[in-house]
């Protein structure tokens, strides 16, 4: 609370605007009630397990397998989104074609569509007798209820991230930079590889990290398509739910804290990336 009191003094000295005390009060109270206290409950419950208990639960074979599949599928999905998201952003910014605005809006569908809805649609589509599952089955590939299905769900939910981080940077990119490269004798390919992509790099990495972080925590769309076989297609969030249903609160909390640590590291990485980009471009 020293933060708040100190702030009130500093805030009021500077401004003639009213309501600082009131709005900061509401903000802190609401933030504490909804976010801070419950998060603290989680961390303290996990701390009850102790450090050894955390290690033990993290190195359990089933847990390890679930981390492997979660991170593996998330990495693949984020990579696919990186490649196609960049192309999509490029087309949306640089090309003029009928339906461009429609496509631009459509890219946000995974943000707006409830995950459970996406989950059942993707499962139906990729199940053995589904429209696309049939084709894959013809090649002897099982998609739904197997690891590729998880990756597909994660591609879906992470799709907008790369597009939406790269698009504004691409829009702001001065066309003169590419013209300069062209007058200096660079081919189009050289210009893209040596001038455009390096300029986009921070945005590309940020989009990738955001898509990855989102994929790691995803639950709704994956549980339908995954098949959820322990050790094979069981993701970490599902394992948390399973532990909770078995009233293993401490185990669930320990896993949750591990996941939080991962998101925290991702968040830090994204922040550092953005700081790096700002510093390099000097604005």
């Amino acid at each position, binding site marked *: 609370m020293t933060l708040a009191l100190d702030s009130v003094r500093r805030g009021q000295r500077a401004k003639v605007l009213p309501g600082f005390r009131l709005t900061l009060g509401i903000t802190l109270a609401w933030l504490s009630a909804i976010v801070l206290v419950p998060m603290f409950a989680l961390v303290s419950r996990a701390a009850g397990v102790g450090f050894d208990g955390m290690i033990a639960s993290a190195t359990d074979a089933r847990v390890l397998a679930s981390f492997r599949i979660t991170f593996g599928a998330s990495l693949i999905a984020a990579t696919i989104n990186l490649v196609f998201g960049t192309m999509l952003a490029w087309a949306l910014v640089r090309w003029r074609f009928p339906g461009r605005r429609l496509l631009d809006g459509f890219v946000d569908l995974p943000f707006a569509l409830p995950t459970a809805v996406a989950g059942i649609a993707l499962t139906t589509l990729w199940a053995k007798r589904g429209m696309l599952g049939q084709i894959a089955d013809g090649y002897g590939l099982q998609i739904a209820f197997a690891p590729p299905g998880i990756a597909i769900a994660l591609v879906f939910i992470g799709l907008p991230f790369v597009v939406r981080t790269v698009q504004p940077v691409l829009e702001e990119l*001065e066309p*003169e*930079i590419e*013209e*300069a*490269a*062209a*007058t*200096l*004798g*660079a*081919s189009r390919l*050289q210009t893209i590889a*040596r*001038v455009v992509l*390096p*300029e986009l*790099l921070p945005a590309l990495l940020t989009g990738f990290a955001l898509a990855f972080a989102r994929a790691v925590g995803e639950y709704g769309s994956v549980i339908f398509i995954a098949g959820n076989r322990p050790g094979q297609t069981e993701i970490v969030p599902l394992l948390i739910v399973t532990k909770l249903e078995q009233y293993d609160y401490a185990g669930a909390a320990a896993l949750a804290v591990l996941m939080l640590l991962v998101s925290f590291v991702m968040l830090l990485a994204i922040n550092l990336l953005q700081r790096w980009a700002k510093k*390099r*471009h*000097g*604005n």
Partner: protein
Amino acid sequence: MTIEALGLEKRFGSFAALRGVDLKVEPGELLALLGPSGSGKTTLLRSIAGLETVDRGQILYEGIDADTISLRDRRVGFVFQHYALFRHMTIADNIAFGLKVRPRRERPPRAEINARVEQLLELVQLGGLGGRFPAQLSGGQRQRVALARALAIEPRVLLLDEPFGALDARVRKELRRWLRRLHEEIHVTTIFVTHDQDEAFELADRVVVMNDGKIEQIGSPAEIYDQPATEFVYEFLGGANRLPCHVEGGVALIAGTRLTTDLPRDFTGDAVAFVRPHEIGVARPNGHIDDVAQVRSILPIGPDARLDLEHVSGHIEALVPRESLDAAGIGVGSRCAVRIARARVFPTS
């Protein structure tokens, strides 16, 4: 290299940027494209570079149609208005870029590239700064990096788009002189775009004045200043009084002064006269009515004085020696006779 533009036309949607431009640039000359914004000067420069395709007309490099030469083979050094430096590369990498992207067979060895970069850094007075990034340099330094980068490919022609536009006045002046010296040193055909007449007059061998997608006048700075070809050029150069007048038989009556004009002997009608302030003198009124003006204010500038005069034909600005005021006993509020020494008269269309 000789560059020729023949009948260039270019539209952006409904806006005509170039409306029939013909221009010949001589080898080794320093040419300024001068005009207000929207006059087509930047479009002309970009078309010569090959960054813009014209709708009609032709550009010849040494007599060869430039359309048949790829951007890489044109060897055009282009300096962009905001420099367009590659932010993620060091200064040295920026300058080396044009050499490094050459096909392997034509690419100089690494050591040679490095030596060339060092040499260029020295040339633009940035020795020792090769390891910095563009964001760490001042505006004037970035400007010179952009120039060094353009020079690295040993261009056959150097094109600069508002090269000093983004700099403050002091740096602009310094760089201007520096660029003039540099041109005398390397003597590459150079075309630059500017909307600043001082810049054009100080730097260029020849000035091309553009307006509304067309060329109004081409000439040396002295020619343009002494003999503005059109009303527009007079207006654009500024500082001249614009006085409505009447012409009879080729003789104009301007603020009470009769002057023979360049107009045909048989021309009679309304016209507009451009008179520079120093081409106007004042004297004690001598009984005539139509040359009398009232002195509104007097601003001493060194040995001269700037007079604001109110005449029936309009507001007149004159620049006269201060002693002539004392001699004639002219002060603020007094009346005086206006004497026009020289004027250029254009018939009112």
